[in-house]
């Protein structure tokens, strides 16, 4: 992996930064290139097992056994709602789905985080400002509310890698982005027949 290593003096710091192509030294480059700002602290640049496995440039051959065991490990760590109730309030869920703030250096850490679902997914058919990085979820409630469906949807929100390793989607539960109650509210926004997600466009 280490193809070439040489020292270069960087004009800005006047220090000698050794740059290399070894993956285990990229973190050092990042440590020298970023500075902590408000809640965005430097430890965020350290990767866990999922992030490391999913950082391979496109086309890189990956070890299937490693990926399978990582996916199983993620599935085993999913925390289902303590009271067995999956569905909260779809109206509050709509707010979570539309809120793009939370955990940025520019965000107020005393305010609740958003889920920003609309950045990537179509949901309510009347909302035109939706992104296309993820699949459309319009009419998601038609999938029903069986225990299997509830558990599947919860798990997808909690830790997408439990089903689809290296999906682009954030791990809203596992990474503590959303609270259990917020996840329930988003569940209701997706699955409640009264939610705009499951209503025909006006």
């Amino acid at each position, binding site marked *: 992996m280490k193809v070439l290593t040489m020292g*270069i*003096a960087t004009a800005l710091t006047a220090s000698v930064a050794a740059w290399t192509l070894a*993956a285990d030294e990229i973190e050092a480059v990042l440590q020298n*290139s*970023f500075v902590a700002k408000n809640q965005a602290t430097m430890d965020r640049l350290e990767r866990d097992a999922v*992030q490391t496995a999913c950082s391979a440039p496109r086309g890189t051959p990956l070890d299937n056994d490693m990926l399978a065991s990582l996916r199983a490990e993620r599935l085993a760590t999913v925390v289902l709602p303590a009271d067995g109730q999956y569905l909260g309030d779809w109206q509050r869920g709509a707010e979570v789905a539309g809120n793009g703030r939370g955990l940025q250096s520019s965000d107020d850490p005393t305010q609740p985080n958003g889920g920003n679902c*609309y950045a990537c997914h179509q949901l309510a058919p009347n909302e035109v400002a939706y992104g296309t990085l993820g699949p459309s979820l319009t009419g998601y409630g038609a999938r029903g509310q069986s225990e299997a469906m509830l558990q599947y949807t919860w798990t997808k929100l909690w830790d997408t890698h439990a089903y689809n390793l290296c999906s682009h989607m954030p791990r809203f539960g596992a990474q503590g982005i959303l609270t259990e109650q917020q996840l329930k509210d988003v569940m209701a926004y997706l699955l409640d027949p009264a939610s705009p997600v499951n209503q025909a466009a006006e």
Partner: protein
Amino acid sequence: MKRHHLGFTLFAAWVCSVPLAAEDGVFDQYRDLMGDDNPAVFVIDEGEELWFTPQGPGSATLEACDLGLGPGVTAGAYVRFPRYFADTDAVMDLESRLVHCMTTIQGRDLEAVTAKPYSLRGDFGTEIEALVTWLAAESEGATIAPEQNHAAERAMYTLGEEIFFYRAGPHDFSCATCHEQSGMRIRLQALPDLTSHTGAAEAWGSWPAYRISQGLVRTMGWRLRDCFRQQRWPELQMGSEASIALQTYMAVNAAGGTMTAPGLKR
């Protein structure tokens, strides 16, 4: 120094009030309507003025600054960046090269010139922003052709590619999360595929750009810093190795495209 223009501020207010639904289409129409009238022209003038303004303890201009094509040569210099410079033994982007010239030729204090490279909302533009805008205009219409002859330049590309795919932070975001697919958008904002020549050429060739919603010219260095803010990462530093590596990755993918900067963006 004049930096704001009432007419454009009114245009900005009008564009920002356009309903989101038709945003991309309407913005294209707006851009057509503006034609060559990009508010960045004022910033271009300012950048040129700054290049020829004596500053620092030696009261020197930047005319002796070598942007890679020889001291004082500005036409066509920007499209060759990032590139290796023997005098610093480093691969540099335009912003860090300018800082180098300010500290060596003009003798200015490093901390002072790097304290605030990018303006905040509501500010006037900074010196770096103005100089980069003028120098980009000095390459307008030229073919993007970053140097990849030196081993350090090729290694910088590889490092940039690795950082592009590096997933980190509470949301597990990398640059690739938003920029490795074609034809996608976030909310209504179209996302260039920076792994492809077409997407990279479109993106690299259109920065620096006048951001109408902010009333300021923004450089690629700022664009990267703001992407990382949205990625929930700490703050990317101007002229840092990661910043230069990512710019090398984009510029090389964009090679052969046309420099159209300074662009005009929402």
